[in-house]
């Protein structure tokens, strides 16, 4: 990590005063960004801060409205991604964009195959591909299909392809999100090797630990504006987070006592399910939630967490079990039926099962109450406006523009939109499936705080999250599932994180039980 500022050598990439606006949104506002040869530079910011937009400006996907981009000291204007590639800028995305149905070698050499007598010399091509791959420490059969390899290997193939294109700038956009620890180490080894060869690397990740492990320098964006550029050693983690969200993170402490809050379980539960199950989906399971209580569901992905709440909500039909709402037995057969019983459910898949992308923020928020009222009685405009502006303000939805299309919002803001949709229906039980997945710290804190606040005011909540710290912080009781089966329940004040992990792993025979 020796960063010598050599003023004689122009930086590899210099972006000055970059401004890009979309209808209703100023995505980037006069942002400067500098990327030097032989460094790993991390671009940080919340969802919606403008990271993607900046990268898309650099790769020629978006045209810039104002500002200048120079590559190696020479000013360039990119009209297409091909222009950017020709300038030596290559991107490796989270979802690998190679041809899965071609061989590894074909993918690496695509468009640059060595020729002999006008025809492609395949054996030479595969030899060259193997050399490039070996340069990254990868020895695999270049004649195997790309799709037969793991995402980690496919990413390395994408990187070697960038090397074939003679990339001077390599952009890694969330490359580690589906890699395990060993694969991440391997990738970082390759990245360090390239850095030492003088490649300029832009690394984007949600994982702070990885940023601190690999990056030499950090640029922070917030709300489309540049916050600053820092050497990694000059910026402690909590300072970085504060700069990203524009306020101190200790607000999270305010909700820390949510889990400690005493819940009165003497009355009738708001919802009580016994033996709720469906063959092939979930073994019969019990769950009950009392007024003002947050019940967390913990377990690994595919443990039956989502299945349980979908049965409860009527999104899937249960084939066994009995459900009581406020003491009276009901048979919930459809989402609509659940909503009529004041149960609301926000799916883990925001895009496919949550927002209606082509409708506006306002239309998305009002959809829940409108659906409940039926199509005949349209909610009056004035009433709609009042509801919408109330929730945009109380949940801090950004941009605070009711007429923006929902799909143009960042993940965290889409999640807030869904929360608003359901809160507007005044539910008694709110089921949140992974409400904070893939969203940034600021929005996450907003959502956690709102849940804590609402439950303290009497709302019952079922909270599902893969982040066990989060579950333990918010929920008073945690129901644990494993292998599509409920294995038990713990009081969250009586167990710490390790205890809960142990419980999940050891089927309730661990120390926590």
């Amino acid at each position, binding site marked *: 990590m020796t960063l010598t500022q050599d003023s004689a050598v122009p930086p590899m990439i210099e972006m000055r005063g970059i401004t890009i606006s*979309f*209808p209703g*949104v100023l*995505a980037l506002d006069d942002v400067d960004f500098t990327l030097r040869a032989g460094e790993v530079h991390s671009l940080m*910011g*919340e*969802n*919606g*801060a*403008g*990271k*993607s*937009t900046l990268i898309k400006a650099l790769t020629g*996907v*978006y*045209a810039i*409205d104002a500002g200048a981009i120079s590559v190696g000291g020479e000013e360039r204007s990119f*009209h*297409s991604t091909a222009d950017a590639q020709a300038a030596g800028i290559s991107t490796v995305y989270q979802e690998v964009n190679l041809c899965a149905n071609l061989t590894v070698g074909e993918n690496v050499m695509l468009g640059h195959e060595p020729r002999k007598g006008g025809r492609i010399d395949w054996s030479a091509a595969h030899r060259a591909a193997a050399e490039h791959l070996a340069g990254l420490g990868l020895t695999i059969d270049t004649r195997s299909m790309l799709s037969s390899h793991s995402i980690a290997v496919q990413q390395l193939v994408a990187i070697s392809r960038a090397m074939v294109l003679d990339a001077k700038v390599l952009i890694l956009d969330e490359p580690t999100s589906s890699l395990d620890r060993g694969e991440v180490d391997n990738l970082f080894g390759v990245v360090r090797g390239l850095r030492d060869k003088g490649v300029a690397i832009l690394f984007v990740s949600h994982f702070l630990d990885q940023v601190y492990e690999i990056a030499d320098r950090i640029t922070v*964006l917030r709300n489309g504006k540049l916050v600053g550029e820092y050497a990694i050693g000059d910026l402690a983690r909590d300072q970085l987070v504060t700069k990203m969200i524009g306020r101190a993170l200790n607000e999270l402490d305010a909700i820390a006592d949510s889990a400690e809050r005493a819940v009165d379980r003497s009355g009738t539960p708001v919802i009580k399910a016994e033996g709720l199950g469906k063959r092939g989906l979930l073994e019969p399971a019990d769950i009950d939630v009392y007024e003002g209580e947050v019940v967390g569901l913990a377990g690994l992905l595919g443990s039956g967490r989502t299945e349980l709440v979908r049965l409860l*909500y009527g*999104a899937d039909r249960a084939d066994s079990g009995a459900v009581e709402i406020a003491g009276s037995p009901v048979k919930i057969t*459809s*989402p*609509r039926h659940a*909503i009529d019983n004041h149960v609301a*459910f926000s*799916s883990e898949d925001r895009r*496919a*099962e*949550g*927002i*209606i*992308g*082509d*409708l506006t923020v306002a*239309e998305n928020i009002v*959809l*829940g109450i*409108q*659906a*409940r*009222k*039926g*199509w*005949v*009685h*349209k*909610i009056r405009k004035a009433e709609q406006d009042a509801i919408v502006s109330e929730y945009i303000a109380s949940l801090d939805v950004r941009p605070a523009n009711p007429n923006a299309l929902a*799909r*143009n*919002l*960042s*993940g965290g803001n889409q999640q807030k939109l869904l929360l608003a*949709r359901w809160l507007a*229906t005044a539910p008694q039980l709110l089921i949140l499936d992974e409400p904070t997945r893939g969203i940034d710290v600021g929005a996450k804190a907003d959502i956690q705080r709102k849940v804590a606040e609402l439950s303290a005011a009497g709302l019952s909540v079922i909270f599902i999250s893969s982040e066990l710290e989060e579950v333990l912080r918010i929920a008073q009781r945690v129901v644990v599932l494993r292998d599509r089966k409920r294995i038990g329940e713990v009081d969250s004040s009586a167990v710490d994180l390790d205890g809960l992990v142990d419980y999940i792993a050891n089927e309730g025979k661990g120390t926590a039980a």
Partner: protein
Amino acid sequence: MKTIVKHRLFWPSASLLALIVINTIARGSFVKITVRDGELYGALIDILRNSAPLMLVALGMTIVIATRGIDLSVGAIMAVSGAVSLQIIAGSDEPDNIGVVATAVLAALGVSLVLGAWNGFLVSVVGIQPIIATLVLMLAGRGVALLITGGFITTVNSEPYEFIATGYLLLLPFAFVLAMVIVAVVGFVERRSALGVLTEAVGINPEASRLAGVRSRGIVWGAYIVSGVLAGIAGILYSSNIRAADANAAGLLIELYAILAVVLGGTSLMGGKFSIAGTVIGVLIIQTLESTILFLGVPSAQSPVFFALVVVIVVLIQSPRVHTWGRKLFGGSRSRDSSKPSSDVEVAA
């Protein structure tokens, strides 16, 4: 000016206007409208009158397409509807009796409603793909119509029935007035109630809409019923105009013209956002084009080619990508819309 150009109905309207201007230049009498016995006459009035059946069918198609569906059976439903009403009138002793005609019309509409409900049932309850579900009736419907007429072309002489297609009301052709009233009523119901936005929600994201509590089955089913009834009315207009129930010719290929009108009006075949006003303009473009072919004396053998050429030109004029090229060629300055169509924008970081 800029906001006018950006309005989604700008290019469809401009295309329609251009067609009218071209006709007028070719022959000035195109825009001439005369009053005779309190009735308006002229080429433009003919266009309005003749557009009525397609207007109704395209209106229903717009709503079905908004739900991510398609209704190929509208032409066949027109044939059945005409056959039912004419068979009742022809079979009665007093074809001029208004009661008989009313019964015939109501029976035809009832049958159309049942056929629309059948389509809706297949799509929304059974879950068959719309194109296949409505193909069933498209193929079988004309057979049903022939069955009703006994294999003949039923003809009638009934003044009240003929009035529907050829009569006048308040200076204007009754058929056009009827179509516009229905368009206005449907448009009013869709936009003044929440039906329009719920229909769009179902069309954009069916699963999210279901989880949000929207009764999507009812909305989809209803769309096919509306489409069926509107096709039924179109069938009555058609049979009233020719005073005959021709099971093979009634509404032939009208499903394709209706889809074309919907697309020309700016509604996407992917479902979701729809524009009834756009569809009305789309229908008028198609009908004006039909008249242009007659008016300019294009030989009938070549008329399909001429029609296709003009449609291609109109579609190109409306294409956002062509607009970009146009700006690059003539504008000089670099437009930022070129690389960022607002529909593909993702502001998320």
